[in-house]
């Protein structure tokens, strides 16, 4: 009995091993090294980096680029997370019910998620082109002169958010699945009470989906602080006027363009702390909801 148990747990560890080894080698060790490098003068090429105490931390305080970068990232999260969530939830709920052609719409919503970031970004270079891009032409139909999207700081940020509004397939699928798990009788009972579609959304669907929505918000915050790297690089390269110099872009620039590897390591830690802080605020805000117990 004990022996069989021992063998079983042994085989469990054996199955876990490949993943565990990879996590340790590719994530845990580099993360620890990253913390160590953050307090050295490592340039990325230094053979023997020296410990420099809090020098890098002091540098954070009066780094004007970092201030721009922080602002760009926070602007992006504040606009992108709610809009992406709204799109995923809205489309998920609209397309959850079986209806003719539904599967084509669902596929269409998921499709941009399959497209590689770089390809989508190149596509958006065309979409946002001020002279022949479809977006400005569309605005033109309504008599609007259009924007010089990527050369104005604000519209450049909005352009990146617009692009990232499309790859929302994962959140969409989660909402779709969660909605389909809700008991149809709850809606019939509500209909009998005179609760219309909007009331059902407010009184039943959203409260019951709340745990899923919180999860998606947390996940999207983590994701959004990082995935804007590719669009920013392809669309704007951090410009104009550092408007899209998001933290991942700045970290990359510091580490591999300006030979500031140690400093970049420190900003990485900062990015992680900011992510954690935003998530903490989100969880505190929804703490009173019963569904999260």
């Amino acid at each position, binding site marked *: 009995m004990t022996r069989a148990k021992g063998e079983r747990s042994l085989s469990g560890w054996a199955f876990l091993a490949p993943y565990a080894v990879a996590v340790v080698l590719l994530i845990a060790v580099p993360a620890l090294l990253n913390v160590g490098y953050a307090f050295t003068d490592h340039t990325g090429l230094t053979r023997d980096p020296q410990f420099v105490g809090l020098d890098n931390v002091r540098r954070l305080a009066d780094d004007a680029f970092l201030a721009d970068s922080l602002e760009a990232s926070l602007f992006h999260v504040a606009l992108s997370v709610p809009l992406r969530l709204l799109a995923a939830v809205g489309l998920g709920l609209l397309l959850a019910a079986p209806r003719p052609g539904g599967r084509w719409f669902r596929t269409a919503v998921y499709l941009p998620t399959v497209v590689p970031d770089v390809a989508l970004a190149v596509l958006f270079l065309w979409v946002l082109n001020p002279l022949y891009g479809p977006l400005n032409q569309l605005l033109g139909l309504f008599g609007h002169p259009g924007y010089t999207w990527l050369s104005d700081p604000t519209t450049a940020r909005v352009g990146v958010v617009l692009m990232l509004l499309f790859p929302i397939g994962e959140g969409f699928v989660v909402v779709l699945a969660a909605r389909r798990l809700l*008991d149809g009788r709850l809606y019939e009972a509500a209909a009998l009470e005179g609760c219309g579609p909007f009331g059902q959304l407010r009184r039943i669907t959203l409260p019951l989906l709340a745990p899923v929505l919180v999860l998606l918000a947390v996940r999207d915050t983590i994701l959004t602080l990082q995935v804007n790297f590719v669009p920013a690089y392809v669309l704007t390269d951090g410009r104009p006027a550092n408007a899209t110099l998001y933290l991942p872009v700045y970290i990359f620039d510091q580490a591999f363009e300006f030979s500031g590897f140690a400093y970049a390591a420190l900003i990485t830690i900062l990015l992680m702390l900011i992510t954690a802080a935003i998530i903490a605020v989100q969880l505190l805000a929804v703490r009173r909801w019963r569904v999260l117990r």
Partner: protein
Amino acid sequence: MTDGGGLRLTGLVKAYGPVRAVEGVDLDVPAGELVTVVGPSGSGKSTMLRLIAGLERPDAGMVAVGGQDLRDVPPHRRSVAMVFQDYALYPHLTVRENIMFGLRVRKVPKGEARRQAGAAAERLGIADLLDRYPDQASGGQRQRVALARALVRSPAVYLLDEPLVSLDAQLRLSTRADLLALHRQIGSTTLHVTHDQAEAMTMGDRVVVMDAGRIRQAGPPQEVYDAPADTFVAGFLGSPPMNLVPGGGVLGGAAGGTVGVRPEDLALDPAGPIEATVDAVETLGSEAVLLTRCPDGLRLAVRTPPRLSLRPGDTVRLRFDPDRLHRFDAAGRRV
């Protein structure tokens, strides 16, 4: 008689694609009557309730409550409340909020809604559960919450869709009594759907037997039991069901038709005309049921006193009361 809150169904038809769920149902339930609707799964009982509640639109026919045609009346404007089989309580709301839900949707002020919810809960003996969530209540308590939710609407007609099916046997018995008491108190028109014939027989002023979307028979329980309108009703009501003998056989000839006899109308008698072998003995404590087989392969169930010490394989002779035979024609209708 003016049927203040009576229910009338006329020629009700509902099909889902090729499946005809309800096929021409006519039913008249006077105000204050409790009618049980019984039938096998898929007989159209639940669809009928959904048509009355307004969750489905009939393909043809009419639903009227208190003489008013409900064709174009949306569900929430019908004076009809429905209790679902699995109660359909909102898991994210407390018992109180569940009961108040409909009142709040109808813009009843919060204080008044709370008062009414409290009163309904008091009435059903769940006042101490008001601040709990449905998953913190037992099956029987949840069932009462669902009833309270119907109660606060003070509807003319209550529709109960298998309200006892999720309860264990003992609780089912006591809840059955409670439901009856409540019905007597409120005096509302009630349609109680069940597939449990004991429930149907004991609770209803009248019992409606449905099969394949049609009403096979409607009437007082004893009457339906004593004089089933067709072989379906004869075979459906009663446990064990009526013995049906095509052609009459040992029960006496019936050219082309069927003759039936209830297990309690057969008796052991050494001089009886029917010879049979005991297949099995089902002991129920206060009585026993013999499952027997005649030489020609016909199976007959016989209700007997307990403790007869008969064993499978024993040969017995049976007698029947000719006045208690049921005769049906070739189409299965009572003659």
